[in-house]
């Protein structure tokens, strides 16, 4: 097993978040080296390797730390300690409505999101039709997202997010917009995107979705890596051992809780345009 085989190498990654009650604490943290905030450990000493071409699902309850882990692999936030090494081109989708603004048209939102994902202007032009076609929004291109039906902005975001693959593709987002048919369409589109050599890592929100996409499962529970192996075994382990211990009675499988995806297109705050 040569080194080139490893696409993602995660070594002893730990992360804690800090909360600040007062501005003074914030200033201390940000500007001086003094850190007086309340620390909450999110990840503790996570290590694993992902080989080139592997399809991996990260399984965990809400607030288990899997989202933080995804963001660290994506390189958006840095671990407090430990290292992440990525070999190859990386595309990471951590939010499917990236940069979306309800007051802008579908087309403008398309341009903003693709730009934020680093597409070139040629790519943006070239893929426009196929993205809107997939999202079934070709006729609504020039309408603002505010006028879109429920779920349509997410559909557009998903279409953009899954239009282009890369050597390594990270996905943390929804895989359906209401109906079962869309769920199937989404999974098929993702399967096609990550086909072959693509290394794929997803944050599993529905265990059944993960089963169709992933061969390997990594279970994160309360900030620790508790299982790493074949996906089906990971699901078994997760079901048996990972109750929502710290939080109260949410014993139902998380299959349900995720569906309540709310549609809050964060309407960016109106500009301060008071005169003079």
């Amino acid at each position, binding site marked *: 097993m040569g080194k080139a085989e490893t696409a993602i190498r995660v070594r002893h990654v730990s992360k804690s*978040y800090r909360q600040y009650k007062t*501005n003074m604490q*914030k*200033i201390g*943290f*940000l*500007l001086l080296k003094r850190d007086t905030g309340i620390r909450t450990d999110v990840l503790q000493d996570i290590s694993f390797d992902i080989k080139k071409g592997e399809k991996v699902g990260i399984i965990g309850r809400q607030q288990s730390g899997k989202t933080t882990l995804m*963001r660290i692999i*994506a*390189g*958006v*936030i*840095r671990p407090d300690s430990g290292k992440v090494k990525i070999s190859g081109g990386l595309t*990471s989708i*951590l*939010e499917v*409505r*990236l*940069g*979306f*603004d309800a*007051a*802008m*048209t579908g087309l*403008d939102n398309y*341009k*903003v999101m693709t*730009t*934020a*994902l*680093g597409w*070139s*202007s040629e790519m*943006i032009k070239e893929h426009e039709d196929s993205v809107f076609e997939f999202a079934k929004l070709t006729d609504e291109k020039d309408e603002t997202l505010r006028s879109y039906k429920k779920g349509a902005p997410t559909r557009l975001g998903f279409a953009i997010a899954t239009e282009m693959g890369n050597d390594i593709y990270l996905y943390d987002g929804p895989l359906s917009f209401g109906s079962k048919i869309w769920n199937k369409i989404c999974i098929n589109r993702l399967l096609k995107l990550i086909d072959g050599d693509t290394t794929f890592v997803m944050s599993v929100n529905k265990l059944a979705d993960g089963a169709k996409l992933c061969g390997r499962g990594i279970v994160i529970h309360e900030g620790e890596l508790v299982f790493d192996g074949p996906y089906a075994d990971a699901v078994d382990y997760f079901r048996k051992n990972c109750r929502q211990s710290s939080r109260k009675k949410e014993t139902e499988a998380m299959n349900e809780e995720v569906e309540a995806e709310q549609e809050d297109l*964060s309407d*960016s*705050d109106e*500009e*301060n*345009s*008071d005169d*003079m």
Partner: protein
Amino acid sequence: MFSLMFRVIKENIAYFPQTLRLARAELKRTYMTSDFGMFWAIMKPFMYLLMFYVAISSGFRGGKDIEGTVCPYFIWLAAGIVQWQFIADLLVGGASCYNRRKSIVRNTKFPLSTVPMIAVVSKMMVYLIMIGILILMCIFMGVMPSIYWLQLPLYIALTVIFLYLWVMITSLMSIISADILEFIKTIKTAFFWLSGILFNVKGRTNPFFTWNPISYLAEGFRNTFAYHIWIWEETSLLMHFVVMLLIMTAVAYLLFRRMEKRLPEIL
């Protein structure tokens, strides 16, 4: 220190096409709610100009031209208002630039030093149109293009640098404390009245005018259009301005260096 500064400059150049696209989207968003959006953006400063012109020329100035100028009072006033309008747009409005792009900052590896530039560039379209109108007005009123107009791009560049630093400082500071925004809103009016947008500050030695970058930039446009003075002729004022820019660079550097890595977490 210099490696970070070079990186920021490099990022801003390398990502300029990206910046331009995002700025264009922002511009469209700002003016899309009305059919004549861009028209209103230009009408607004026009109205100010007319209002002040009428009020001041018939009021306490009696319509006399400013001494030392080669142009009517109207052009002198317009040159200042064009500058003020661009600066005022970003004095407060730029401070929310990171917050407004929260979802992008939090979820992608975005070149964060370009975010203030997006805010500046998005306001530049209107600014450039205003400058075009100013030039047309000059010609209509018999003030012919002169060699002094060549320094116009230089003053535009200085204005952009000043605003980029200002937006970076205020946006990062407003993440730490929302009070900063209120503070800037409060001093904005003071800046307008005390930067010599409406009255002649040429030759005054009050430190508020000599150390005030906004005053300097407005005077720069007037030197170009109204006084016909080269930028290097007012050496002492130029030095004051450069010192202010250096101070702002230092503040922006300190804030950005400490906060860049943490922005995705704390926004």
